């Protein structure tokens, strides 16, 4: 097992966003192995941060030997790395901003505040009270001693976004600025269009901004495990690309599938938009020598990082309604106000899950270890693989045994189009093997902590006020309906 702080010690300038390729590298050669003329000598680069070292072989300096790198518990981190978070106001964007700022990164962020708008339209709200972005930044300054730069920019507004990128010249981008809701994307043609447009045009703008203003930066885009679907054949969900020994047989012939993108089967228009985002990024890396990591994240839950725990004024948003809440968060909220925990269909649907805290650790390790130029990397960001039913039972048990609640679990008609009985094997090794990740969370503790927070009067009141939004009604087939209860009062 490698030391988790040393996972990127041996990386070189070839991986570093501070490298200067311009003038030394022919970008048109990426993706084409035919070279029109023989190159003179060897590839050399310059360093944007250390101009005094002149031209050198990009493989000659390692992170652990470079004065621009600092050893941290997450690996060697570029000093004061300029990171731009797209979607900084969100559930994940805000905790990441705080964490990176505390690690000494220069944090820049944008958000169009659409999430707040759409949640309010639904008659719901964050059940952890959150202030305005200005207030949050002020609290971060006072309580954590960090400066975070924020602009209220829409990623789909090319002119404004490009101007900000040109001004900042980020060394890393985190693409969180996507509408993440499957039921929202299925509610109507308007919401489907909005989801697909926001997510894909936003990602497209990011690719062009990187090409033109920050080609050596790395980008980490949030994908989703849902891109893969849940193949009934039981084919394991490899990390984005087929391994080298995967073989396709047909008739008397066989071909290697090594390195090809694995099949996709997205179960909503939101998931479809993520699949397109994958192709946008995959191809752009090849066209333009960009460094990209596609994070196939499992369902994220929890509200618990050291920075968030500092003070309620640093809360991240926490949604629990049918459109914007994720399943474990919703189950805890339902238990807190005595609403039934709603399982869709059989409840045997299996998914991968990860806490916010673990997701943050993963993201920082990925930021610390960018891919090579032109490399499209994929990781499956999952720690636990569980069925919906198991989760409901675990939440209900903890609520009853430790918090004196009387939760009930119901199975209701499934509003979604999805397999309810299916094999599900997730390969999730890269984050541990290559990036030194080690989970610091467990499901039960995270649920306990969520109960503690959500039972505080301020949150409990907010959940009560959004009670109507807890019970699902959006049909994949269109429209809304009161879903029937198929089985009431499941044991747990």
């Amino acid at each position, binding site marked *: 097992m490698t030391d988790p702080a040393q996972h990127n010690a041996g990386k070189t300038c070839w991986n570093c966003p501070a490298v200067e390729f311009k003038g030394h*590298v022919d970008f048109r050669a990426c993706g084409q*192995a035919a070279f029109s003329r*023989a190159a003179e000598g060897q590839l050399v680069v310059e360093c944007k941060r250390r101009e005094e070292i002149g031209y050198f072989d990009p493989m000659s300096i390692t992170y652990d030997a470079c004065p621009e790198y600092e050893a941290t518990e997450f690996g060697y981190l570029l000093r004061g790395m300029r990171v731009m978070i797209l979607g900084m106001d969100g559930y994940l964007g805000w905790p990441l901003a705080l964490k990176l700022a505390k690690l000494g990164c220069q944090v820049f962020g944008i958000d169009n505040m659409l999430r707040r708008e759409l949640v309010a339209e639904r008659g719901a709200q964050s059940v952890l009270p959150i202030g305005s972005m200005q207030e949050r930044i002020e609290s971060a300054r006072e309580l954590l001693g960090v400066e975070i730069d924020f602009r209220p920019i829409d990623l789909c507004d090319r002119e404004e976004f490009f101007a900000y990128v040109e001004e900042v010249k980020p060394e890393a981008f985190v693409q969180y600025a996507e509408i993440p809701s499957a039921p929202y994307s299925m509610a109507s043609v308007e919401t489907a269009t909005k989801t697909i447009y926001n997510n894909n045009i936003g990602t497209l703008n990011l690719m062009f901004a990187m090409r033109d203003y920050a080609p050596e930066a790395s980008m980490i885009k949030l994908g989703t495990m849902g891109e893969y679907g849940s193949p009934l054949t039981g084919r394991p969900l490899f990390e984005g690309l087929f*391994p080298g020994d995967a073989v396709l047989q047909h008739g008397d012939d066989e071909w*290697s599938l*090594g*390195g090809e993108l694995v099949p996709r089967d997205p179960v909503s228009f939101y998931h479809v938009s993520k699949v397109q985002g994958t192709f946008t990024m995959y191809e752009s890396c090849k066209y333009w020598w960009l460094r990209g990591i596609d994070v196939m994240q499992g369902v994220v839950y929890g509200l618990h990082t050291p920075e968030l725990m500092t003070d309620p004024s640093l809360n991240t948003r926490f949604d629990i309604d049918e459109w914007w809440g994720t399943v474990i968060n919703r189950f805890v909220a339902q238990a807190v106000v005595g609403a039934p925990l709603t399982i869709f269909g059989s409840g045997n649907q299996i998914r991968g899950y990860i806490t916010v805290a673990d997701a943050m650790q993963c993201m920082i390790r990925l930021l610390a270890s960018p891919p090579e130029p032109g*490399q499209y990397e994929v990781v499956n960001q999952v720690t636990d693989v569980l069925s919906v039913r198991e989760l409901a039972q675990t939440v209900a048990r903890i609520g009853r045994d430790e918090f004196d609640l009387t939760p009930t679990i119901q199975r209701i008609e499934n509003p979604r189009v999805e397999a309810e009985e299916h094999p599900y094997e997730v390969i999730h090794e890269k984050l541990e093997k290559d990036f030194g990740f080690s989970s610091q969370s467990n499901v039960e503790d995270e649920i306990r902590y969520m109960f503690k927070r959500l039972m505080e009067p301020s949150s409990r009141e907010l959940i009560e006020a959004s009670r109507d939004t807890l019970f699902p009604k959006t049909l994949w087939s269109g429209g809304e309906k009161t879903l029937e209860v198929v089985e009431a009062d499941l044991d747990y």
Partner: protein
Amino acid sequence: MHHRPVFVDFWASWCPPCKMMEPIVDRLAVEYEGRIRVAKVNVDRNRGLADRLNIKGLPTYMMFAGGASTGSLTAAQTERKLRGLIDEALIAGGPEGDTDG
């Protein structure tokens, strides 16, 4: 004096199959240890060489024996095909059981 045949793996950062084939190449290197040598050449950092050898697609796996190329394969390959490439070169390179000179 006989030299071991050389298996050359031409790769680039922007080539996903190149990366995914690495464990297979490494496994073959272990299996054929002592009988062949394995070299990995990044085409972007070694453009002159890649150009001279007319590398047209990646990955390209090329065998050299007795100073000349005995064959090459382009694109991700099944293990069977890679063994075929190596075994042909071993036959062409000299008597069986030859040790490194």
